[in-house]
């Protein structure tokens, strides 16, 4: 017994010496985490924060590591876009002097996407359109020289900005046509109530040089299109409420309207419909169109999708249906896909969860719960 007590005493003593001998933990200093380099799988999620509307954000998320990288402050009903080189975020927003009321300031704020730090801003006239996000509330010219911002007062027009000089160059009336669809270095198209496109060509100083109307590319009374145009090689695809795809080629001086093709045929026509706040996404390298689909009738175009349908954009054939219930996911409001050859499909649900899929197989890679409050639109490089 005495030997046991002696041994225990020696062990305790040794433990004490070890504690005393070990180096103390170093002091910690607060620094800012460095962002990983921009890659094809980074995504920028516009969170309208509907229930706290003056406090919208843009969440930055990495689809490879499933890490939240940071966020940008986005104010009230923002319009957001990336610069053509992907290095800059442009956030068109509004602030009020007393938080939820007071004098209104409309502004475009620019942030460095490698640090998420604000770099500069351009104060706008108080005309910026307050509405749901589209790719066309704020947009860059292809060479990055101009930024266009959609105005609604409720008269429709748009502002032309010089981001390098941080100035507003002017305002162009659009005769009732809305939004800013950019093409080339100096063209802006807007969607008109008749289903036509108004294209304004700018001169070197950002003033209007000419304007022209296209033929109607859809019938707003019979089958309206969503204004959330889907970027594709050389232009945008506009999906209609009943599920026709209207592709518009914007590479020329005037838009080229391609023959529409259907997502839904036969008995499913009118029963299965696209819907949500960002109904579709296109992988240009892989020729895939992803659409959020639901069963519903007239008035259901804002419904989130119970399935994602996958189409070949060359053959126009449906190649897969991916039901969200299989993954215990709620319905999908917004879709985006990365533009590389190992594409990821991002799906934001009406419960604010973000699902990441292998866009080629539909295999679920990750579910990020509660990716903000109302993640209604996603952008990527």
């Amino acid at each position, binding site marked *: 017994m005495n030997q046991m007590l002696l041994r225990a005493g020696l062990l305790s003593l040794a433990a004490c010496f070890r504690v005393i001998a070990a180096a103390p933990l170093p002091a910690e200093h607060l620094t800012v985490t460095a962002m990983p380099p921009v890659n094809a799988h980074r995504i920028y999620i516009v969170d309208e924060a*509907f*229930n*706290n*509307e*003056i406090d919208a954000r843009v969440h930055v998320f990495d689809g490879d590591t499933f890490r939240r990288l940071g966020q940008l402050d986005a104010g*009230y*009903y923002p319009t957001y876009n990336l610069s053509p080189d992907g290095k800059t975020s442009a956030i068109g927003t*509004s602030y*009020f002097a007393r*938080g*939820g*009321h*007071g004098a*209104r300031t409309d502004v475009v704020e620019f942030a460095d996407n490698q640090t998420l730090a604000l770099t500069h801003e351009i104060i706008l006239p*108080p005309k910026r*359109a*307050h*509405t*749901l996000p589209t790719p066309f509330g704020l947009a860059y010219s292809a060479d990055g020289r101009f930024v266009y911002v959609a105005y*609604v*007062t*409720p*008269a*429709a027009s748009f502002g032309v900005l010089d981001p390098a000089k941080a100035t507003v160059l002017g305002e162009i009336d659009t*005769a*009732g*046509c*809305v*939004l800013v669809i950019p093409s080339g270095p100096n063209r802006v198209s807007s*969607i*008109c*109530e*008749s*289903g036509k496109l108004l294209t304004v060509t700018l001169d070197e100083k950002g003033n209007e040089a000419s304007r022209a109307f296209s033929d109607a590319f859809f019938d*707003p*009374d019979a089958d*309206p*299109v*969503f*204004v959330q145009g889907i970027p594709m090689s050389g232009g945008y695809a506009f999906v209609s409420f009943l599920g026709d795809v209207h592709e518009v080629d914007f590479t020329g001086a005037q838009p080229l309207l391609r023959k529409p093709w259907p997502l839904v045929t036969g008995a499913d026509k009118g029963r299965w419909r696209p819907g949500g706040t960002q109904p579709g996404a296109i992988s240009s390298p892989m020729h895939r169109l992803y659409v959020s689909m639901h069963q*519903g*009738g*007239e*008035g*259901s*175009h*804002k419904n989130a999708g119970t399935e994602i349908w996958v189409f070949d954009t060359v053959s126009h054939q449906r190649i897969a249906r991916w039901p969200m219930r299989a993954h215990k996911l709620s319905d999908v409001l917004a879709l985006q896909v990365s533009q590389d050859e190992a594409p990821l499909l991002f799906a934001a649900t009406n419960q604010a969860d973000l699902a990441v899929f292998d866009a080629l197989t539909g295999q679920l890679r990750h579910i990020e719960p509660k990716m903000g409050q109302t993640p209604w639109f996603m952008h990527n490089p």
Partner: protein
Amino acid sequence: MSKSPIDKIGEQLTRTLAGYSSRRGFIAKLGAVLAAAPLLPLLPVARAATATAPKTDFERNAQTKDDTKCTYWKYCAADGVMCSCCGGGSHTCPPGAEPSPVSWIGTCLNPDDNRSYIIAYRDCCGTPVCKAGKSCQCDGADRELPTYRAPLNNDIIWCFGNASATYHCSTAALVGLSGT
């Protein structure tokens, strides 16, 4: 001479519509009709509700008794928080909020008389969004159209011309019978 509430709504709608549309457009024609509208006018609206059209999901569940529920018949094209759950009513703003002078419009089928009515939806503004229960967070979109048909669009924050442009809640005022 003071104007009737209907005349005032017609005038406001006309101003809104004129601001949006080309002079040749259908919306401008609708605005002209509304400007001259007598009490309970018959109003032509494209994509209007009709008694003979198949009922929408909303219309199958619509009711006329409780304006604090999203199923209330006038809310068929109302997307937002309904003011009736925020201290106001289906066509009154809550205290402390300011009515927007302009509106978007819809046509809703009344399940009691099976008639379609034009509804003017106006936002109440000047203080942040009302935190109501889910029963008043509505997403009616019958015959609703995107922003290129702005007077029929409920995604726009209709707080134009207000002291503050913040959105608080939405109202639904009956304007008249739909003429289609």
